């Protein structure tokens, strides 16, 4: 047993990446499509093999994929979310047998562009998933036609099913999303504090949530509420 390589599992924050916590009115059609797509699998009705989501970095694509897995699990389906941001650690062997899983999410497919082995592996997975009647939910930072993927067979399959664009989330929705997440963590994040974070930090949701995580830990440690002065203490570089 390799005890040395075991992760030390510090208690982290609850995973709340569900459809419910995806606060974006404009992207509600995307949520409905995703749910409807997974529902087709549950009802064992004919469905396209894949649903492709695209949008710029930070619009919540990863959130939607995690939420799809959570939704699938609620319905009794098996699921997996494979992120290509971890590509360096992965091997194409990772794809063996995945067609047995009901809902397979592949995040950031643009990161495999030009990597022949991975392009082939995803193409092969697509064919196996089609044969098994399971489904893929795939995200990328570009419309299929703009992806730099070299294998035309993979590109044509990506364009085959459903495609949804995830639109940028408005600032007021980001504030609501941050407040929702704060509430899930038992915190109160007042409007002015949320706005302060939004105007001083990178406005990508993932960064804002990381900041919230840090504030949460600090607020427990220092027994303080989250206020603008407290935020300035924790992130001195944005204080001025």
């Amino acid at each position, binding site marked *: *047993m390799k005890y040395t390589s075991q992760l030390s599992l510090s208690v982290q924050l609850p995973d709340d990446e569900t459809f419910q916590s995806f606060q974006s009115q404009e992207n509600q059609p995307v949520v409905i499509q995703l749910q409807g797509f997974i529902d087709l699998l549950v009802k064992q009705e004919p469905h396209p093999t894949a649903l492709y989501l695209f949008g710029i970095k930070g619009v919540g694509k990863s959130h939607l994929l995690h939420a799809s897995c959570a939704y699938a699990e609620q319905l009794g389906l098996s699921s*997996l979310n494979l*992120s290509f941001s*971890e590509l360096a650690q992965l091997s194409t062997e990772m794809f063996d*047998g995945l067609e047995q899983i009901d809902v397979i999410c592949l995040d950031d497919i643009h990161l495999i562009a030009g990597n022949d082995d991975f392009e*082939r592996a995803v193409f092969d997975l697509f064919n196996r998933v089609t044969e098994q009647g399971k489904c893929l939910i795939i995200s990328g930072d570009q419309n299929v036609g703009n992806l730099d993927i070299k294998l035309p067979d993979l590109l044509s399959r990506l364009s085959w*099913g*459903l495609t949804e664009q995830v639109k940028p989330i408005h600032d007021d929705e980001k504030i609501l999303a941050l407040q929702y997440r704060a509430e899930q963590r038992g915190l109160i994040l007042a409007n002015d504090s949320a706005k302060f974070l939004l105007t001083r930090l990178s406005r990508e949701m993932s960064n804002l949530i990381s900041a919230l995580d840090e504030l949460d830990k600090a607020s427990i440690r220092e027994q303080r509420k989250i206020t603008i002065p407290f935020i300035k203490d924790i992130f001195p570089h944005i204080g001025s």
Partner: protein
Amino acid sequence: MDQSHWQRCLSILQEELPAQQFSMWIRPLQCVIDDNIVTLFAPNRFVLDWVRDKYLNRLTELVSLNDPANPPMLRFDVGSIPTTSSVKVPSKVPAAEESTVKKAKTPADTNLPKTANVRNKYTFDNFVEGKSNQLARAAASQVADNPGTAYNPLFIYGGTGLGKTHLLHAVGNGILANKPDAKIAYMHSERFVQDMVRALQNNEMEKFKQYYRSVDALLIDDIQFFVGKDRTQEEFFHTFNALLEGNQQIILTSDRYPKEVDVEDRLKSRFGWGLTIAIEPPELETRVAILKRKAQESNINLADEVAFFIAKRLRSNVRELEGALNRVVANANFTGRAITIDFVREALRDLLALQDKLVTIDNIQKTVAEYYKIKVSDLLSKRRNRSVARPRQIAMALSKELTNHSLPEIGDAFGGRDHTTVLHACRKVKSLREETHDIKEDYSNLIRTLSS
């Protein structure tokens, strides 16, 4: 320990781990509990090793929480529990019995059922025929009626998404319609490779050979992916010979002409022994018919003008057309709006913008010049020797077909030529495409490059 305890373990892990790690490594695990033995099934060896390496300690702690004095034994294995059949009653994880566990594929799985993977939804009846694919369809249909004797092998080649796979399945279904107990195997070439690798690993090549040589029809898709797989090619060569000798049907598809498939020469030559037939990108009328057929299958009434609007803009392959229609239908279902041209324009905004961006006269000139290895300035020059004049005519014809520019505008863009020159070029290219295989192929390749 029972399933509800495993659910508690999952909830704890979900809280402890970042969402990405949880969704990637823990979610796909499936738990089977038998007596006091907990077996976690991973979809493959890679996931299993990763989980054992990174999470074993924590998992051992968690499964022991209920009864630390008598902790269950934790085991790992590769395999899966089918869930889809039991999903009608929603539950977190279906209660699983060990007998339902599907272990990872072994060569025994190559002992496939008689109609391995033939999808009954692809038939000749729902194959939309047009000029671009009618020969391929006719040949496939003859093979379905007379397997092993009509054309053997039948080799169908063409770009991605043009209907090759549909025809393969249609042949399979056609043979079955005439002879319900026929043994037919459809597979993608990668699957053949994987089956063979497993057979080799498990020392079960005899079983593998026996299976593949016993089928009435072997349908292998995308044979070009055999490239670089020498051992597979060797085995396929022998399978191929055995099937041919036994008058068993072989149908192969590829994205290129047999001689251009990068496999052993002896295989290449055998590919051409029967009938080799191309499938071309569908022309406008066929694209419209495909859209109308697909819409009908989804119980949608797609007006002719809307079908023409989509078909005129998306030319590269049928998958792209179907994908576009899927988007339109999904949007219409969601918004409850009627499918009009304006609605389609909105629903496919990004896709259409992309096509418009790609298909400009500038881009056509650049692509044609690159294709024929000449300079764009040659296309615009007054030079009239054939090595320049022919590509120029082709570029003009493409500009007429792929853009909405008028003939005078196209003439202007080609070094200030008269519109009658453009008209002549279009007519010339049309007749050359009918008479000369090379020009026909070049033109198809250029259209595919420009519109994919």
